[in-house]
């Protein structure tokens, strides 16, 4: 078997350019297959993990959307909370925010700007200043982004004072925001955030936990009706039941469309690749009639000849497949910068790709190989 593979590799190597062009279709096709499967697999694993993370089984979420984009404060109030908790079948209700950042105005001397603010994460890489976080009860220091620093301060921002909503802080660190990252403009300590800014964040989500005896659907409906009647910010926006998987649903839909498109591209390019393989195998067979004749005269059966060309066609496709897998792998790691989840190339995807390449080689190499096997021997031996 190994010697047969060597023979195939040798004759493929003899026509590198021609064979590479033939492989292109396979390469594109397999690259697409790898990407589709990687995105699909990555997404499924996120989705299933997500379900395990926050149990949405006994929870209905009511969302408030303000009618004005500038409105960042309206949402569910304390009174709303007690109304919701009074509904039959409700266990308890949590008010949260879909966007946990506070919108603030900042000022240094005469320069003013608006900015987003949040509490400090556990670790942050600073480009200027020391340390990687702020003490939980540090009420004087803040970190700001390089962009904001450039906007407000003429020169160095470090150790300068910055006024945020009438409170004075000292900039003790500056961080850069990478191209593919999102960060707010300002970080403050946990305590500062709680004391000064938490109240500014609109609580536009009510997570209603339903008693196990009650129906989510019914509770959701009555909660919506209650809010339409009694909601304090009813005039400022719209209430709706947000299905926990609504976001994922719309995302899945886009993803599906992309997947169909890529699958279509993969299918077409594999089909064209197959036709190319068939063509190149026809050419090879007619170029090598002498070789076929010689092998037949010295003991090769027509089956041996057919297998020789089939192996060649399969190897041609598998090489294309391997290049496609490598390219797909590279492409997936690039795509991962833009995806909200991590696409993964699984062993299954690699096996799948290799099977597809083998199948293309087998299917489209079969007719030419059979032609080689079935030629009349005397005719073949007249070839020079």
């Amino acid at each position, binding site marked *: 078997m190994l*010697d047969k593979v060597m023979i195939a590799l040798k004759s493929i190597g003899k026509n590198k350019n021609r064979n590479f062009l033939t492989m292109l279709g396979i390469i594109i096709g397999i690259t697409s297959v790898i990407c589709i499967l990687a995105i699909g697999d990555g997404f499924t694993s996120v989705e299933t993990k997500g379900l395990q993370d926050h149990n949405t089984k006994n929870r209905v979420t009511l969302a408030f959307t303000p009618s004005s984009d500038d409105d960042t404060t309206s949402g569910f109030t304390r009174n709303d909370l007690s109304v919701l908790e009074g509904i039959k079948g409700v266990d308890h209700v949590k008010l949260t925010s879909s966007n946990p950042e506070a919108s603030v105005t900042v000022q240094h001397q005469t320069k003013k700007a608006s900015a987003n603010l949040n509490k400090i994460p556990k670790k942050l890489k600073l480009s200027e200043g020391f340390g990687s976080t702020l003490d939980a009860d540090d009420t004087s220091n803040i970190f700001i982004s390089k962009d904001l620093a450039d906007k407000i301060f003429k020169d160095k921002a470090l150790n300068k004072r910055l006024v945020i909503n009438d409170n004075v802080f000292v900039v003790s660190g500056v961080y850069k925001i990478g191209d593919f990252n999102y960060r707010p403009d300002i970080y403050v300590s946990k305590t500062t955030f709680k004391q000064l800014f938490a109240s500014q964040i609109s609580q536009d989500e009510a997570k209603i936990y339903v008693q196990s005896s009650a129906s989510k659907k019914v509770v959701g409906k009555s909660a919506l009706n209650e809010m339409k009647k009694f909601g304090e910010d009813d005039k400022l926006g719209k209430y709706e039941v947000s299905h926990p998987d609504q976001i994922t649903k719309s995302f899945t839909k886009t993803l599906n469309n992309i997947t169909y498109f890529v699958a279509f591209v993969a299918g077409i390019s594999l089909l064209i690749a197959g036709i190319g393989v068939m063509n190149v195998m026809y050419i090879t067979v007619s170029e090598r009639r*002498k*070789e076929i004749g*010689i092998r037949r*005269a010295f*003991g*090769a059966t027509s089956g*041996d000849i057919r297998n020789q060309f089939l192996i060649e066609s399969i190897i041609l496709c598998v090489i294309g497949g391997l290049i496609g897998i490598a390219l797909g792998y590279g492409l997936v790691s690039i795509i991962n910068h833009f995806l909200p989840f991590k696409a993964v190339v699984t062993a299954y995807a690699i096996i799948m790709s290799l099977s597809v390449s083998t199948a293309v080689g087998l299917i489209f190499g079969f007719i030419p190989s059979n032609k080689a096997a079935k030629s009349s021997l*005397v005719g073949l*031996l007249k070839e020079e």
Partner: protein
Amino acid sequence: MLKVNDIGKKYGKFVALENIDLEVADGEFLAIMGPSGSGKSTLINILGLLDQNYTGEYLLKEKSYKDANDNYLSKIRGDQLGFVFQNFKLLTTYSVYENIEIPLIYSKQKQTNKRELVESVIKQVGLEGKEKNLPSELSGGQQQRVAIARAIVNRPNLIIADEPTGALDSKTSKEIMNIFTDLNESGTTIIMVTHDSEVADYAMRTVFIRDGRLYNNEKSVKR
């Protein structure tokens, strides 16, 4: 070795062979002569089991292969026959060694034996040191030696040679015929087509074909 009874062959209406009777004994060295287009290659292709499309009876080692299937014919060709052609018919991108190895790929030899077998026939035809060369790097005579080595690597009973010296000068032809004579003396039966009566003189017996008919079919031992 073989026996031919009333063999005929037509290409459409054209009669290429007619009424051929021929017997070749084990260990014989037969030359077939005749003008161009007389049917020499046509006959020898039938004898070499390369062409099954004929009328009449052909027995190789007392067996008829008229109805044998393709796989079986391939096996017989590989195991019992060895071919030498006028224009060598070497694979131009394969080395001397690889060319000679071809019949072994399709026989059931062990890998270790294969190397030995190839080395021994390379020695036999006097091509030591040329194993890695391509055919294009050899002279015509050397190329024909490669072809002979390939024909005998499986130790066949019968060598079928279609104008083995047709592309060689008379000096080189003599060298090739000496190899043939050695092979014949060590027991291999040889059937050879040639135009050259000097070459035919190396054979034990010569038959003539003209217009598809065989003449002078009597024994005439010359050596």
